[in-house]
């Protein structure tokens, strides 16, 4: 089994608005895929479909080779959302408690996250370099630090895939590079497959192995090197004009393997 995530002819619409049309995408194990696209291109919707938060109107999503409806091993998938709209900043929880909560599903119902999990939790906090803040309340940290804590929460259960939705929103420019270096380490050293959604095309292409350009349909999907070559044309096409000329790319694009 080489594909961690696979989308087959997936379409989605909110009421009358078609957001995604016929998406075919295969994400091989160990890759670092950057998904880029303008606002409203359906990036977040696609992640929600992969996470099972939304159901596709057409097509099917496969996780680890299983159809999503049958998939149960959610602890294999770590998720880091756009910080701003998800969590409650005033929440009185320490960094340790937040990271520990990432073990909820894996620990199972009616069991507690006890002392046995402590080394595992501390390892995850170490991996994101937040060990000095373990007992601090999450609300006292900066946006970048909070985002690192959320990554730790996502990786504490040893997932095979980490899905990140615009994780650098609200993180200052200086820390963005450090942040990507950390992701790179997770990908290379821990072998975690990464799926990163962003509109920041500049930074991602030197870290990611694959790129997918999304604007309601998949315009490009291939290796990062190929993306660098077509980048300029692609990006100008992206924000307007003629998008049809590249349609064939997505038919063949998803067959590109590393």
């Amino acid at each position, binding site marked *: 089994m080489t594909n961690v995530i696979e989308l087959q002819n997936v379409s989605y619409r909110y009421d009358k608005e078609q957001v995604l049309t016929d998406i075919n995408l295969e994400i091989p194990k160990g890759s670092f895929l950057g998904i880029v696209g303008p606002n409203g291109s359906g990036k977040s919707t696609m992640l929600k479909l992969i996470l099972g938060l939304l159901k596709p109107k057409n097509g099917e999503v496969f996780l680890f080779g299983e159809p999503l409806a049958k998939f149960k091993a959610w602890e294999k998938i770590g998720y880091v*959302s756009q910080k701003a709209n998800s969590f409650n900043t005033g929440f*009185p929880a320490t960094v340790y408690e937040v990271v520990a909560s990432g073990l909820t599903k894996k620990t199972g119902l009616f069991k507690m996250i006890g002392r046995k999990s402590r080394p595992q939790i501390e390892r995850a906090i170490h991996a994101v370099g937040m060990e000095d803040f373990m007992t601090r309340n999450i609300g006292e940290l900066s946006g970048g630090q909070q985002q690192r804590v959320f990554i730790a929460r996502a990786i504490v259960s040893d997932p095979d895939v980490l899905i990140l939705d615009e994780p650098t929103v609200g993180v200052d420019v200086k820390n963005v590079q450090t942040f990507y270096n950390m992701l790179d380490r997770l990908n290379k050293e821990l072998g975690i497959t990464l799926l990163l959604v962003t509109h920041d095309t500049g930074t991602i292409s030197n870290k990611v192995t694959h790129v997918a350009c999304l604007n309601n349909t998949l315009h490009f999907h291939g290796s990062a090197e190929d993306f660098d070559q077509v980048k300029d044309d692609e990006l100008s096409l992206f924000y307007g004009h003629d998008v049809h000329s590249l349609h064939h790319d997505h038919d063949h694009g998803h067959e590109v393997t590393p």
Partner: protein
Amino acid sequence: MIEAIFQYQFLQNAFLAGLLIGVIAPLLGAFIVVRRLSLIADALSHVTLSGIAASLLLSKTFVAFNGLNPLWLGMGFSVAGSLFIERLRNVYKHYQELAIPIILSGGIGIGVIFISLADGFNTDLFSYLFGSVSAVSRSDLYLIIGIAVVVIALVTILYKELFLLSFDEEFSKASGLQTGALHLIFMVITALVIAGSMRIVGILLVSSLMTLPVAAAMRVARGFKQTIILSVVFGEIAVIAGLFSAFYLDLAPGGTIVVSSILILLTSIAFKKWQTMRK
């Protein structure tokens, strides 16, 4: 009062019931506050009022209902109200707070109709509204013990799930938790705590014991577990101080417990100020 507690059964009842709700109200309150549901607890307590009024009316009109403890119907109304709130919150997805005034006024409105049908009640109703040191019966106490056992067991068993749901609902959905079922269980527990607490603090002041100790704890605590433990400690102090002063000064305990909670809250705010100023 210590001596009197050993002497009089009604004081034992009040005191033991007070100690129990001093644990369960802040325990659940910690989750209610962080989930921004404080006002929902208030709305539910008003629904409990209509249940109490209905029960008092029934026992006044029908002899068969004479022995019925009003807490049972109060609890029933409260649980039904919690389920109804959830329906309303789904109907008005973008105006979820609308459920609060609907339920709150509905609860009071129905309660008032029952009260006027019965040509007004005696002091009994007053004790339900503002709590009472002398009105807690043995059967009330047993019911409160039962509620406390259920609530503490459920919150302990589901702690990590409730924590995750409260902290980050989207993430808990993405990690495959049954958030809908969990939330429903949470609302039913809330309804139980409200029904159990009102004998001591009174319907109108129930939500104070769920929110004020938590508000005080949040100023000084580090982390969520500490917030819960401190909330329970503050809740117990407020209940004990409130019951003692209510007994000696012949006041409604609801009032004295709330005033004690507010004093604790002010102290903790002042303490935090002093602490940051020293840094």
